[in-house]
């Protein structure tokens, strides 16, 4: 993930981009909405809303079932979305693209399926900055199998201690789970280096890409990872749809994790033959509209260009961090060199929840709390933070609005 990507194409025209997002044009408590909670969930352009609506208005039927026209249309659109996802992440084949409910389900799929092979004393290695969704599935797996969860440390600025993590790879390591971009700290992790070291020991690597795919170009073959999990709603697509990319040879060896329709070729009471990839992992009627909406989101993002988005966001993140740093009493949490999209902070002794309420009154939406990363908060010795997270449709004016609102909070509560 090249965060410094500069594009030869003209810079992103943010005012034009904003026209594509109906939700951004509203007032909250009498102030223009400044939506800076994109790491929790990004907003949708009209193109995505329309694609989902059109599908329901014109094309809906179950997929891979009927011989009738609507079923064909729905199947074509659903499988067309799979191809868009494949191209978007640079996978070799659509057989490697499994639709899930989201990142969480994708990780749970791997934990359930790959985990079937785990034995007492085997190890799973993750980092201290993981989201709960890349911690708890492994804890559950460890409980079931007697495997041990190992946690690689991070520095005070939120940088992964790569050498320590690599030193924790052992003959018993069965999987490495690592977030591409930390949701609480914004740190971009050196996934390629981790993959290289893990593969030298034939250990598969799962990357939690939930916070990455909106902010820069992701190429799974370049990363070399075995699994890459991400969510539609964090990249301008619908909620309830996500993706597990899995390298074909890995997925082939893994047993199904849920049984039902769609994931079978033939069923009898003596023997059931499972379907081929990726359907082996998609039991039941899938989230067809969600996949189509995700496909539309990918079209939209590609239309702007991920490189342009990355370049714009890096500038805006730098502006956000700089302006926050000017506020008296500001403590920035997560100041790693390589970052994307997110800045966590604390202001004096003001509790993040109080900040959140005051900011909301000024039209500014941020996230407050532990961000589903309680171990990170524990490490910093705090119950939670305030977190501003940007997308390519945010502006410097919105950052200014945040700073003004923080000053109001300071006057009132400081």
């Amino acid at each position, binding site marked *: 993930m090249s965060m410094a990507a500069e594009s030869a194409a003209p810079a992103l025209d943010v005012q034009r981009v904003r026209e594509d997002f109906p939700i951004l044009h509203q007032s909250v*408590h009498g102030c223009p909405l400044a939506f800076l909670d994109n790491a929790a969930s990004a907003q949708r352009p009209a193109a995505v809303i329309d694609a989902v609506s059109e599908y329901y208005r014109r094309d809906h039927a179950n997929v891979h079932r009927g011989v009738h026209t609507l079923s064909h249309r729905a199947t074509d659109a659903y499988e067309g979305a799979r191809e868009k996802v494949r191209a978007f992440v640079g996978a070799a084949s659509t057989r490697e693209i499994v639709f899930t409910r989201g990142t969480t389900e994708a990780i749970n799929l791997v934990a359930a399926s790959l985990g079937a092979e785990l034995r007492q004393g085997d190890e799973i290695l993750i980092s201290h900055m993981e989201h709960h969704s890349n911690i708890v599935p492994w804890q559950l797996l460890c409980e079931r199998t007697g495997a041990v969860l190992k946690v690689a440390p991070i520095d005070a600025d939120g940088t992964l201690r790569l050498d320590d993590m690599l030193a924790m790879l052992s003959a018993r390591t069965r999987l490495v789970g690592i977030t591409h971009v930390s949701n609480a700290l914004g740190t971009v992790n050196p996934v390629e280096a981790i993959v290289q070291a893990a593969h030298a020991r034939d250990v598969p690597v799962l990357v939690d890409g939930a916070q990455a795919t909106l902010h820069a170009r992701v190429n799974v073959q370049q990363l070399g990872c075995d699994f890459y999990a991400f969510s539609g709603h964090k990249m301008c697509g619908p909620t309830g749809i996500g993706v597990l990319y899995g390298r074909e040879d890995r997925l082939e060896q893994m047993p199904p994790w849920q049984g039902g329709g769609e994931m079978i070729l033939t069923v009898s009471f003596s023997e059931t033959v499972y379907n081929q990839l990726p359907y082996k992992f998609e039991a039941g009627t899938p989230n067809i509209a969600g996949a189509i909406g995700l496909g539309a989101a990918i079209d939209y993002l590609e239309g702007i260009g991920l490189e342009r988005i990355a370049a714009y966001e890096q500038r805006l993140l730098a502006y956000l961090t700089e302006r926050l740093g000017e506020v008296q009493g500001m403590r920035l949490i997560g100041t790693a060199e390589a970052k994307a999209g997110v800045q966590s902070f604390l202001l004096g002794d*003001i*509790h*993040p*929840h*109080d900040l959140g*309420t*005051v900011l909301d*009154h000024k039209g500014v939406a941020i996230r*407050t*709390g*532990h961000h589903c990363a*309680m171990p990170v*908060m524990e490490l910093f010795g705090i*119950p*939670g933070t305030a977190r501003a997270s940007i997308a390519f449709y945010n502006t410097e004016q919105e950052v200014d609005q945040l700073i003004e609102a923080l000053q*109001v909070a300071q*006057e*009132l*509560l400081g």
Partner: protein
Amino acid sequence: MNDDLRDIYRQRVLQHSRQPENRRRPSHANREAVGFNPLCGDKVTVYLDQHADTLDDVAFEGTGCAISIASASMMTQALRGRPTADARAAIAAITAMLDGQTVDTPVWLQELRALENVRDYPSRVKCAVLPWRALEGALDQKTESITTE
């Protein structure tokens, strides 16, 4: 400009949050319970020194937002020296008030009215309720932490 914010952050609330009353661990408490808000990770421990049917001492420790700390401070101040039955009645009255119900509050509970407008902020009601849940746990002698969920 900030009048609407003053609805929730009233002067009394801010005073109590900045300089909370009874934020300490009493030397001889005989009841205690921890209240936990999993939404934000805030924790408040409420201590009681109960003899016969009187709360000789009520105190708290913990971290929290302005709303939860003010609520804890006002709660301990209102209940110190009062009959245990009053604590039960207060829990019912304050949770009903924050739930948007019309309630009569006795004079000794009047100060808690400063938190009344929190009910207009659904995501913050749990903050105000947190110490009261802990109080309830202490009265019930619960050993597990009480969550606001």
